């Protein structure tokens, strides 16, 4: 089982307390009606889907109930860092990444 650090609880918590909530830092337009179809379709459907470090949202649903962001490696499942929503995405030095 993964241990995920919850930035609100300040400690590692078991994976089963969390739910995945999609890619992080996907910003909804303030006025969707003013968006072009292409831009709106990109917001709705297109995600980066990287092989490597991925910023994603998690929900500590069976814990403190808050959302958090995590930088997770999509090959190894290693979570490098978690942080609160609204904070900037930390840069991950790929050198410290695990070898798949």
């Amino acid at each position, binding site marked *: 089982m993964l241990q995920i650090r919850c930035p609100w*609880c300040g400690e590692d918590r078991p994976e089963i307390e969390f739910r995945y909530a999609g890619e992080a830092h996907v910003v909804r337009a303030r006025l969707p009606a003013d968006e072009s179809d292409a831009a709106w379709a990109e917001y709705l459907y297109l995600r980066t889907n990287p092989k490597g470090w991925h910023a994603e949202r998690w929900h500590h649903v069976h*814990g403190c109930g808050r959302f958090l962001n995590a930088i997770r490696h999509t090959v190894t499942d290693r979570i490098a860092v978690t942080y609160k929503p609204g904070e900037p995405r930390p840069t991950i030095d790929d050198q410290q990444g695990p070898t798949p």
Partner: protein
Amino acid sequence: MAEEMADMPEPERALAGIAAGVASVALIENGPAAARIVLRCRPDVASLLGAASGLDLGGRINTARLAPGCAVLKLGPDEWLLIAEPEADPWLGARLGAAAGAGAVSIVDVSHARGSLVVAGPSVEAVLAAGIALPLTIDRFPVDRATRTLLGKSEVVLWRRAPDRFHVEVGRSFLPYVAEFLSLAIAHEAAIAALPR
């Protein structure tokens, strides 16, 4: 309405028909009748509300604090579960309501949505660990630590009252499941203890 209510498991009957434990391992009891209030508000409002209502809403997340007649469990950065004596219900709600002018506050009485079990005994950590993935040793989960987590398939609020005693808050319809789960876990621990060495 009466027929519908009859289908709801009564909190005090959660232990009906199941083995309530083995004294050398752990025993399950019904928790005390209680009034329960879920309080949600922003931390800046909480400090005003705490000062006005006389409840201590400060302290670390995932800890419990005891006030006279009322326990305050801080379950999230903006969420508190208040567990009070049953007759405290009207005055507690009134005290909070009177203080709610401080800002946007949600005060919800969930007394009838929940029940509780008390699990106590020398092997209580091992029994709970059958369904809980958190570390439960006294150094990692000390007395008066309280948090929401999963026990088996059910969400529970776990609160350590003493080194060998835990309070488990459960959604009412999950009470029979959790009681049965813990009863089986105790039987399992007792069977392991009885194995020849």
